[in-house]
């Protein structure tokens, strides 16, 4: 059987740009067709921004890599037009088991909050995620949207000018040059773009290695998540077992700092360990083994003139809590509409500084969360180990200790508190939907709130009427009115609290910009201006 990740999806083709007498200029060039670059391209193409994606490869990611896609990512995929494919293929699990040493200390049933269209997360191999994103790009191309992926196009050099970047590209047929008004570097953790521009990658640097194995079980095996602290088959480290689609189970064995990678990867060393984890009698095939080394750090600044970094190129965190790819989608979500407004001349270029503010804040939050998980999983001192072990010992019989057990906190979108784009708040309304927050989903009859919002500026009237369209300074704000008798319990709890009505101004990335109990037109205009960076 040919594996999905062995099939060329966007093979190299000769482009007329390669024969042009002078470098052809493109409004937006994205380096990297990983999950983040692809999502970025879809968002821009949907908004009719011509976009070119360059990738040195021509296939989806090898091996499962990121496997856990959180609700916010699924909501973003909905807006990008490929949420259903992901969710239909993905696996949802509810039962988790926690082991300490050689014993199970407890198990738990995830009870995600009800009243959301999408589950708290799905498990899905990264190659499927990338495949559906590429398929979405093909569908957009068929609709005539201006988006192109060039496989076998390796970016070799960058030369920055005030208003564009000169991009040198190597192909099987030789090199050629392009000019990009805006360049988005989604070229991964080792970002050649970062290196070519001689930029830093700083922060709290700590390193860890994981042995990652995808195994196909030959018989039934439960759809559960098992997490081991300090198991006999991986002393002083952790291990994780996770179900993925197609009967593939993903195993992460933490290896620590100082290891011989080639030796650890050898099947004769991997298989006995897996047998110890799964049980001697369990039969399986090894599909993919890799060592994943990560460093926890980020770039000091995500934007350098007309070059913007998004995804792993800008920040890297530990895999605990699945914050790698998930936070990258939020980068793309945040950047897309801002770049569109700037390109259209409707917002000042400084609007993009809010991308740096908001997403650097997001990266810091992810690094903090992931450092806390790492401190729990790999205690750094004798005393922190004593406390960690005490928490795990107690967790067997005392429920109170279980929330202290930190095997990675699931990625949730960050609230842009203090963002320069935030407008007025009505503080008596619920805290979780304050300005800066991502709009929380809620049922609306047969439909869902986020579905109704879509991807434009929206004025939401809850328990109140708003005009269907409001035009302001070349921007059309969509009006969504939800009459009082259509307000679901969840919508009330999440958006109204004790109030009878409320008005929310929501950004194209579905983050809340401002809210009022009552509003006057001037206030709306002012809040919209603020949200557009004026």
């Amino acid at each position: 059987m040919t594996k999905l990740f062995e099939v060329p999806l966007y093979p190299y083709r000769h482009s007329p740009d390669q024969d042009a007498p002078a470098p052809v200029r493109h409004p937006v060039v994205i380096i990297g067709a990983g999950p983040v670059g692809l999502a970025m391209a879809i968002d821009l193409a949907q908004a009719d921004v011509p976009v070119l994606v360059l990738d040195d490869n021509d296939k989806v990611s090898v091996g499962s890599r990121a496997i856990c896609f959180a609700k916010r990512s699924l909501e973003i995929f909905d807006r990008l037009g490929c949420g259903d494919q992901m969710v239909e293929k993905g696996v949802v699990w509810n039962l988790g088991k926690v082991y300490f040493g050689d014993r199970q200390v407890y198990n738990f049933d995830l009870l995600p909050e009800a009243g959301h269209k999408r589950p708290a997360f799905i498990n899905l191999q990264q190659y499927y995620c990338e495949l559906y994103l590429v398929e979405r790009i093909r569908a957009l191309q068929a609709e005539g949207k201006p988006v192109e992926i060039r496989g076998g196009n390796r970016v070799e050099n960058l030369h920055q000018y005030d208003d564009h970047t000169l991009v040198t590209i190597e192909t099987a047929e030789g090199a050629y040059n392009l000019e990009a008004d805006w360049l988005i570097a989604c070229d991964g953790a080792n970002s050649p773009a970062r290196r070519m521009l001689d930029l830093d990658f700083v922060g709290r640097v700590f390193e860890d290695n994981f042995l990652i194995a995808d195994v196909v079980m030959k018989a039934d095996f439960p759809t559960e998540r098992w997490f081991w602290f300090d198991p006999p088959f991986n002393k002083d480290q952790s291990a994780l077992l996770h179900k993925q689609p197609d009967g593939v189970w993903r195993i992460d064995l933490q290896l620590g700092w100082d290891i011989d990678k080639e030796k650890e990867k050898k099947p004769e060393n991997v298989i006995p360990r897996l047998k110890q984890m799964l049980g001697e009698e369990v039969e399986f095939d090894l599909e993919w083994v890799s060592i994943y080394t990560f460093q926890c750090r980020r770039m000091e600044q995500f934007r350098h003139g007309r070059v913007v970094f998004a995804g792993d190129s800008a920040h890297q965190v530990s895999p605990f809590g699945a914050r790698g790819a998930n936070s990258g989608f939020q980068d793309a979500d945040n950047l897309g509409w801002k770049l569109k407004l700037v390109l259209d001349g409707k917002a000042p270029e400084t609007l993009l500084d809010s991308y740096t503010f908001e997403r650097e804040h997001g990266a810091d939050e992810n690094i903090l969360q992931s450092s806390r998980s790492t401190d729990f999983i790999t205690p750094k001192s004798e005393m922190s180990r004593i406390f960690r072990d005490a928490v795990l010992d107690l967790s067997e019989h005392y429920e109170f200790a279980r929330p202290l057990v930190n095997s990675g906190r699931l990625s949730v979108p960050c609230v842009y508190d203090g963002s320069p784009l935030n407008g007025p708040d009505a503080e008596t309304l619920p805290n979780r939907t304050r300005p800066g927050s991502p709009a929380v989903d809620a049922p609306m009859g047969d439909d869902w709130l986020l579905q109704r919002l879509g991807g434009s500026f929206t004025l939401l009237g809850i328990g109140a009427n708003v005009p269907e369209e409001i035009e302001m300074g070349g921007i059309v704000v969509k009006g969504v009115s939800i009459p009082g008798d259509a307000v679901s319990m969840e919508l009330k709890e999440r958006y109204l609290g004790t109030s009878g009505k409320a008005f929310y101004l929501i950004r194209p990335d579905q983050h809340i910009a401002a809210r009022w109990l009552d509003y006057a037109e001037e206030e709306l205009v002012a809040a919209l201006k603020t949200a557009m960076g004026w």
Partner: protein
Amino acid sequence: MTPDLTAPKLETPDAFYADLLAAHEGLTKAESDACNARLILLMANHIADNEVLRELLDAAKRR
């Protein structure tokens, strides 16, 4: 409200102190450390107030 950490509140201090020592009797240093850690966590959950807990941590660090 800042908790009053100085006033004596234990009704039978000698009895509590004896219980505390008894709990550690016959334990190795490692076992005692583990027992203390569990005790701190149980007490923290019982107190259940982050602000009070922070005051307690500060007081413990000051000696």
